[in-house]
């Protein structure tokens, strides 16, 4: 028994060593190193803010990719999970002075509960009807917060502002937020990738590929669809929580269709069912938006043209072609 454990402890670094030597492992470590040393070169809070936003959207897009890519459930209302959690996090931080990690967790669990509440009626719907159903729910919340009777109770169109900062605001504040976001993002992506490779992931993918056949294999597809919905809303909720912490304000616009579409565009841009593709898509999307800022009104035009071209020439996402080119380069460098 003792030797068994000892073997395990010794074998883990060996496993890591071989993993790093593979192309995928090496690339992952390389990207992680690059993104961890960025604050050394880039101390401008605004520029760091762009990276933070990109990382938050990475989790958000990955949560959508989990739902659509693994379970085949296309949601057009992913922003409601982002929004619910952002509101809860902001409220707990400002009005109840809860610790930041607790606020984010509470926000995420509020999202999960909401995912369950939305999931049970919506999951009877299939394909485009599910997309429409989820979109309608998010629009209803958006409208309620903007102008319904709920607007008066739930902070109105201004939302929750003046959320207290979680670290003392000084010159290192943004760097701390940067690393906090980075750590949470890496952990979330690792968990999502792990679930994708687990037995649960296999079951979800089987439902995506052929739900009738899953049923014939004895799988309770409704149960697993709801589990997928809850996991997805949890991670969207984590993204929403960090979003509230980072922006220190939330307003009803977060429930609007725009954010839902962001998640879809980012995840599809990277490539469906490839969680790391969501990261690539999110960074590409956010950086492109920033790069086009000097063009003013024309930026949207250029942005759309770039997106259309990308979808035309890389219909399965940009992750795969990029990885293939890099792999060729890697093999060339190693002289294989």
């Amino acid at each position: 028994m003792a030797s068994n454990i000892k073997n395990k402890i010794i074998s883990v670094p060996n496993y890591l060593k071989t993993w790093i030597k593979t192309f995928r492992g090496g690339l992952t470590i390389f990207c992680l190193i690059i993104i961890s040393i960025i604050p050394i070169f880039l101390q401008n809070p605004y520029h760091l803010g762009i990276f933070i936003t990109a990382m938050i959207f990475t989790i958000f897009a990955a949560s959508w990719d989990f739902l659509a890519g693994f379970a085949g459930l296309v949601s057009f209302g992913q922003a409601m999970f982002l929004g619910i959690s952002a509101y809860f996090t902001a409220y707990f931080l400002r009005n109840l002075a809860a610790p930041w990690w607790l606020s984010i967790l509470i926000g995420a669990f509020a999202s999960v509960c909401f995912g369950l509440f939305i999931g049970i009626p919506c999951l009877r719907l299939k394909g485009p009807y599910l997309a429409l159903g989820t979109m309608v729910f998010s629009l209803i919340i958006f409208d309620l917060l903007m102008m319904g009777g709920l607007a008066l109770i739930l902070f109105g169109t201004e939302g929750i502002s003046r959320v207290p900062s979680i670290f003392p605001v000084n010159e290192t504040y943004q760097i701390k937020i940067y690393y906090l976001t980075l750590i949470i993002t890496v952990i979330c992506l690792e968990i999502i990738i792990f679930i994708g490779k687990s037995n649960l992931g296999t079951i979800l993918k089987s439902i995506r590929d052929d739900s009738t056949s899953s049923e014939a294999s004895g799988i309770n597809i409704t149960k697993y669809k709801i589990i997928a919905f809850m996991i997805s809303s949890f991670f969207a909720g984590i993204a929403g929580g960090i979003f509230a912490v980072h922006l220190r304000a939330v307003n009803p616009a977060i429930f609007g269709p725009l954010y839902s579409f962001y998640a879809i565009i980012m995840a599809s841009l990277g490539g469906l069912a490839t969680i790391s593709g969501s990261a690539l898509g999110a960074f590409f999307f956010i950086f492109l938006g920033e790069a086009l800022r000097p063009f003013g009104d024309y930026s949207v035009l250029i942005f759309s043209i770039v997106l259309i071209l990308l979808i035309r020439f890389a219909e399965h996402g940009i992750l795969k072609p990029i990885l293939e080119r890099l792999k060729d380069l890697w093999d060339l460098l190693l002289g294989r």
Partner: protein
Amino acid sequence: MGVILEVKNLTKKFGGLTAVNDFSFEIKRGEFLGLIGPNGAGKTTVFNLISGFEKPNSGKIIFDGIDITGKRPQKIVNLGVSRTFQIVRSFKFLSLLDNIKVSCLSPRGKSFARQHGIDEYASTILASVGLIDKARIPPVILPHGDLRKLGIGKALGTNPQLLLLDEPFSGLSHEETQGITSLIQKLHDDGVTIFMTGHVLRELMHLVPRVIAMHQGKFIIDGTPREVANNKLVLEAYLGKGDVFA
């Protein structure tokens, strides 16, 4: 040898069409039973009713003493009735091993697989249907015969007591048919009760000791392959009525 499946007065209507009409039969434990009939006779509908993919308008289906009439497919599978499909269904983007693993992860499959470990159990099944050397590839590039074997493997993952095979030979070459035949024979020898349909009669008639014939949703005859093949009504169902041959 008790009765494992009892079907009583089963009726299923699709609009004005009665696909299955007052259909009754029994399968004994460990039996090997065939269901024949021309195209459109209602064979697949009978299977869909037993496996829960369709709900009957009237009648009862009792499996192993439990009334499974109108229960959901997933419930019925977990009681021990697995089926394959006439049109091959597989999880396109999962490896063959994962295809089998899905069934092993169902509540019933898990309770059997747990002792061996899910992966090992799925590998054993994949080996028993003769696809173990292709465990890591997805089913999209498999030939039709291998897909049929995969379908049977998927059904076996839940460790069924009763296996429903819907047209296991359709679209297969002669060699592929032989492979499937010996596979089914082996399963039956291992103690699985098998109920299979077919409209290509040669292979089926060689395989099974007892056959039920149906036509236009109605029961015609229950007997040995020889009795059924020589029955006037069965011949009429396949060839049509008339004095041409007289």
